[in-house]
């Protein structure tokens, strides 16, 4: 028991750091030390997770959780998102007069929920992780409580999220009722062929697809991102999607891996819809955060192409895609957060004019992030798309790949518009806040994009090792 608890050290570290922040905050309100405490916890957890990245997974607490391997990889992605979010928040929040210490604690607690999701082999625990993450995100979305937009965004996210929770729970109930277990490690041997079981699977999917903002459960995302503080929007777009996606992968790939034909097609349809709707809507979008939200919906579609391939290489591709997308999207949201300066926290595309002239480095990084989102070689986005598409081709889902390629070609149109816009010779305002540390994070993520694009073998091999060819998450 004790050893098992020790193995949960990264999560515990975050909890402790969060509690410490709350205590410190009550002693010295909104102290500038708090983000550093959060960063310390996050870095510690990241080191621990990276340390056990290579090894296989290990079950804890009688098969309740599994750490190392798959979960270590996902957790590393999540922690990366957390670190970037904390640093961007540190630069951004004082500008909107909301540099509350509690924010950092909430980010950490949200991460606790996410990391539990990525490690959980019991749907009960997955549900609890999901809720912990969600509740923290509802609050963070509505952070700027004196602003009607923030209220609206949080309200929509919250009500729809709670609505989705209802579905997820109902599905879980049916799964439990028909198989007699909520354990993912026992599920493969107990799959009955009753309609009720499949009703349960369908309802369960609603909740997960809602959290990753896949069509048709995506409509909250643009509104919520637009109203949320920009770094938090980046957090939602990357970390929460990664967590929910990994939980989905565990459920479908591991729990339901033996009955792949039953769910693969429907997931392919969802993926296709997401790619079409996400890119189509982004095409006509003028607000940068909304545009990134729609682009995020489209990217979920691409990642789902990997899962819909229902093969080891597809799952590996999806995992690789999560990292590639998270790095690029964190960067894009980070630049948006640093540059945004309107009091109503909006960022119309025209506001980007002149960014490149005023801050060439920031401009160049922005272009790099967007190009990776387009899927331009040799950046990570290209490699990620290639990985999922190749898996889908092998799975015989050529039509899905066709849609994927067409939509990503279309997506070039709106990304490039944003790339060109920033170099317009317009007199632009200086950066509203100094963001040396934030620029460092941006440089780091861009280096990651290049690295993943040029030397992807290491990571591809790593994620490939998590899965066996039977399609079950085993190692």
């Amino acid at each position, binding site marked *: 028991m004790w050893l098992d608890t020790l193995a949960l050290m990264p999560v515990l570290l975050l909890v402790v750091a969060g509690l410490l922040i709350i205590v410190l905050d009550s002693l010295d309100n909104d102290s500038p030390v708090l983000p550093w405490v959060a960063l310390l916890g996050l870095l510690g957890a990241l080191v621990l997770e990276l340390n056990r990245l290579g090894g296989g997974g290990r079950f804890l607490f009688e098969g309740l959780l599994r750490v190392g391997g798959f979960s270590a990889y996902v957790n590393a992605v999540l922690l990366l998102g957390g670190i970037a979010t904390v640093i961007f928040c540190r630069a951004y929040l004082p500008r909107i007069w909301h540099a509350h210490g509690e924010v950092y604690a909430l980010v950490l607690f949200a991460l606790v929920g996410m990391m539990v999701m990525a490690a959980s082999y*019991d749907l009960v*625990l997955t549900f*609890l992780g999901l809720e912990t993450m969600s*509740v923290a995100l509802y609050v963070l979305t509505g952070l700027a409580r004196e602003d009607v937009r923030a209220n609206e965004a949080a309200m929509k996210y919250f009500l729809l999220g709670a609505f989705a929770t209802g579905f997820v729970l*109902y599905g879980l109930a049916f799964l439990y009722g028909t198989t007699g277990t909520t354990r993912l490690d026992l599920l493969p041997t107990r799959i009955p062929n009753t309609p009720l079981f499949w009703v349960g699977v369908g309802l369960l999917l609603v909740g997960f697809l809602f959290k990753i903002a896949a069509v048709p459960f995506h409509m909250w995302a643009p509104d919520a991102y637009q109203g949320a503080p920009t770094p938090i929007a980046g957090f939602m777009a990357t970390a929460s999607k990664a967590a929910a996606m990994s939980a989905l992968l565990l459920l479908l790939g591991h729990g339901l891996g033996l009955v792949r034909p039953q769910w693969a097609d429907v997931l392919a349809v969802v993926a296709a819809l997401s790619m079409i709707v996400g890119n189509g809507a982004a095409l006509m979008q003028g607000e940068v955060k909304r545009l990134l939200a729609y682009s995020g919906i489209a990217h979920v579609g691409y990642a789902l192409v990997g899962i819909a391939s229902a093969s080891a290489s597809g799952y590996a591709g999806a995992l690789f895609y999560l990292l590639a997308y998270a790095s690029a999207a964190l960067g894009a949201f980070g630049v948006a957060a640093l540059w945004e300066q309107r009091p109503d926290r909006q960022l119309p595309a025209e506001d980007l004019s002149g960014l490149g002239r005023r801050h060439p480095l920031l401009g160049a990084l922005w272009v790099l992030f967007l190009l990776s989102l387009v899927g331009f070689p040799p950046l990570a986005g290209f490699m990620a798309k290639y990985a999922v598409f190749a898996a889908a081709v092998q799975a015989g889902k050529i039509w899905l790949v066709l849609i994927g390629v067409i939509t990503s070609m279309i997506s070039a149109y709106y990304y490039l518009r944003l790339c060109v816009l920033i170099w317009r010779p317009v007199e632009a305002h200086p950066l509203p806040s100094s963001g040396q540390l934030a620029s460092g994070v941006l440089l780091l993520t861009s280096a990651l994009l290049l690295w993943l694009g040029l030397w992807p073998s290491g990571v591809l091999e790593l994620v490939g090792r998590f899965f066996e060819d039977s399609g079950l998450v085993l190692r």
Partner: protein
Amino acid sequence: MQVVLFGICALLAIVGAVGVITARNPVYSALFLVLNFFSLAGLYLSLEAQFLAVTQVIVYAGAIVVLFLFVIMLLNLRPEDLPRFRLDRTGPLVVLLSLGLLLGVGMGIWSLLGASFPQDPQAQAVGTVESLGRALFGRYLVGFEVVAVLLLVAMIGSVMLAKRRFQ
């Protein structure tokens, strides 16, 4: 005995639910909600889940609905300036879709319709405090801790969102 309890409680629960969605005044909605929750507690009792029945009354009826009522009073929501019921264009569609949901789930349940509950003492003892406690603090100890974090988050969050002090 069980049949009677089930019949009454199920009926009351449904009446409560219909009441919640039809009442004009949110206070009435909240009171119908209490009715719904109480009758569910009764249903739990009929399923020999005594611990949950008690918790249901304490948590839902005692805490949650009171919180609802408290907020309704705080905001001083009066029935007349409340948004009305939406039975305009989408109304029929919504009813239809909800019935579709019921139908879909019902089709799933069909196969389990006649399943009767096991009557051995072991199965009957599932709902006791002891049995639940073993599961909760055994296998699901980690879950219990996660819930602790969740409640902490909710506490911090609601204070942040609702406290008076504005800059």
